[in-house]
């Protein structure tokens, strides 16, 4: 292998891609529900829209469309974080998320574009189970994970450009440039036998923490980047111990059966999974936001597609865990809406906009809804 091939295809501690993927997917889901749902009221107001890309033409996304996309993407992303992710599902999350921000210039946050790039990387991450990423031994498993290296390089490029644009206007660029270099070094740490690299890792985390601690950010950009940095820069052994603790239930409780008739078990798994797939999206009914029911129903269809023949052929419990993760993610959406002000903010904002445009009838209905969810 050439040095370049060794860089991309060399070993990394599998705990890193495992944890980074789940952290970003879970953060993304709650970011969608808590921070983007309230903005949905601006979509379609006055029948005006300009999309990021010309392929959308004159399409004007309504609030219901946007909320449906947010519900679909969030529930599917969280379900993938809760159980072993699937490439098709991750590709759908990437498409849904990108559709969400790209359908309108109303969402022009660079952070959302970055998350789309990350999601593209995730599609090619190794689809690891907890048992593959965290072995029984104290030796952390390693393996080739080029998409994880690409993820680190993507992050490095972002900091590089922040530094470059800062330099172009005479601002200090040292900190983002250090962050950029730090990510390139961090992507090598698991294969490096040089002690200096391992000693330097906690020191290299410093610039990233300092940069984001002092970074004015309206979104969850800093929070997400700090979380990612924690996982990318952490010493392998620390990450391994942390991962083993977090994944203890997944590694020890989710066991496939070893006794009983395989056919009978397959039939039971099939029916229970099917019932679960019908019931899980019904959680969306209680969220009481336009478009969410459709979004949740589409997550069930996506999960069905992901399971494919596994649904009716396997005597193993995997379909059940997958449906269970969908259920968990749907319930998380409902709980998030019930315990946050996102739903109130949406209706309040929509009512104000309707009043501004002189639509008193719609404003009254929306005002009623806002009052119902006022906390």
């Amino acid at each position, binding site marked *: 292998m050439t040095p370049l*091939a060794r860089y*991309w*295809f060399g070993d990394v501690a*599998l705990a890193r891609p495992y944890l980074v993927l789940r952290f970003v997917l879970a953060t993304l889901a709650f970011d969608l529900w808590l921070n983007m749902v309230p903005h949905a009221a*601006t979509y379609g*107001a*006055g*029948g*005006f*829209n*300009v999309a*990021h890309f010309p392929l959308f033409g004159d399409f004007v996304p309504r609030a219901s469309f946007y909320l449906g996309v947010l519900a679909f993407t969030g529930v599917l992303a969280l379900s993938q974080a809760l159980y072993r992710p699937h490439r098709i599902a991750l590709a759908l999350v990437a498409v849904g998320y990108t559709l969400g921000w790209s359908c309108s*210039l*109303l969402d*022009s946050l*660079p952070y959302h*574009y970055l998350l789309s*790039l990350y999601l*593209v990387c995730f599609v090619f991450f*190794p689809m*690891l*189970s907890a*048992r*593959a990423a965290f*072995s*029984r*031994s104290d030796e952390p*498993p*390693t*393996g*080739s*994970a*080029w998409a994880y290296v*690409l993820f680190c*390089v*993507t992050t490095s*490029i*972002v900091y590089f*450009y*922040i530094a470059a*644009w*800062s330099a172009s*206007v005479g*601002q200090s660029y040292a900190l983002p440039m250090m962050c950029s270099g730090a990510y390139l070094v961090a992507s090598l740490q698991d294969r490096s036998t040089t002690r200096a690299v391992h000693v330097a890792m906690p020191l290299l985390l410093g610039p990233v923490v300092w940069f984001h601690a002092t970074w004015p950010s309206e979104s969850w950009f800093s929070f997400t980047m700090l979380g990612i940095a924690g996982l990318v820069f952490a010493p392998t052994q620390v990450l391994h111990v942390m991962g083993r603790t977090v994944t203890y239930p997944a*590694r*020890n409780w989710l*066991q496939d059966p070893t006794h009983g008739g395989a056919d009978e078990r397959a039939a039971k798994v099939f029916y229970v999974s099917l019932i679960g797939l019908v019931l899980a999206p019904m959680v969306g009914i209680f969220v009481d936001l336009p478009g969410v029911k459709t979004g949740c129903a589409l997550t069930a269809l996506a999960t069905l597609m992901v399971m494919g023949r596994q649904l009716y052929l396997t005597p193993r419990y995997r379909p059940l865990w997958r449906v269970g993760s969908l259920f968990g993610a749907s319930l998380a959406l409902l709980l998030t809406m019930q315990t946050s002000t996102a739903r109130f903010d949406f209706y309040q904002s929509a009512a104000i*906009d309707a009043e*501004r*445009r*002189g639509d008193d009838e719609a404003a009254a209905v929306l005002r009623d809804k806002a009052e119902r969810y006022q906390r």
Partner: protein
Amino acid sequence: MSSVPTEPPPPPPSPTLRRRTSLFIGLFVALQFIVPLTYLVRDDPADDRFTWRGATHQTNPACETSATMATVDGSERALAPERLIHPKWVAHLERDRDAVVSAFLRKQCETEGALEVTLTNACGDAEGVREYRLRCGADRASVSARRASR
């Protein structure tokens, strides 16, 4: 020791897969380097999407946006952008986002009897007043900007 088996890590990619993957990696990385650089050749300086530039450049001038519509009967009436579109879109108009300004003018031209729509951004920066004019009808797509003072 737990009775739960440890699953093997994923196998390393084959040489063929490595070649294909390398091509994808090359394209993906190249795109990430090229896309931000396209800012340097963009017609609209306010359009800094996908460049990571917005993170370091937040210099929105304080502008006041107003609009007028001339109709076929020879009259001219003032439009209130904040009543026609969401205030977030008005913020884009104030920043002279070409795509949004064009779309706004085209949208107003859909009004029956509209002959010409003008959008004026009176800003407190060095560029002063910017005026965008669109003649409705045959030449709908042409938008002109007149910078009153520089």
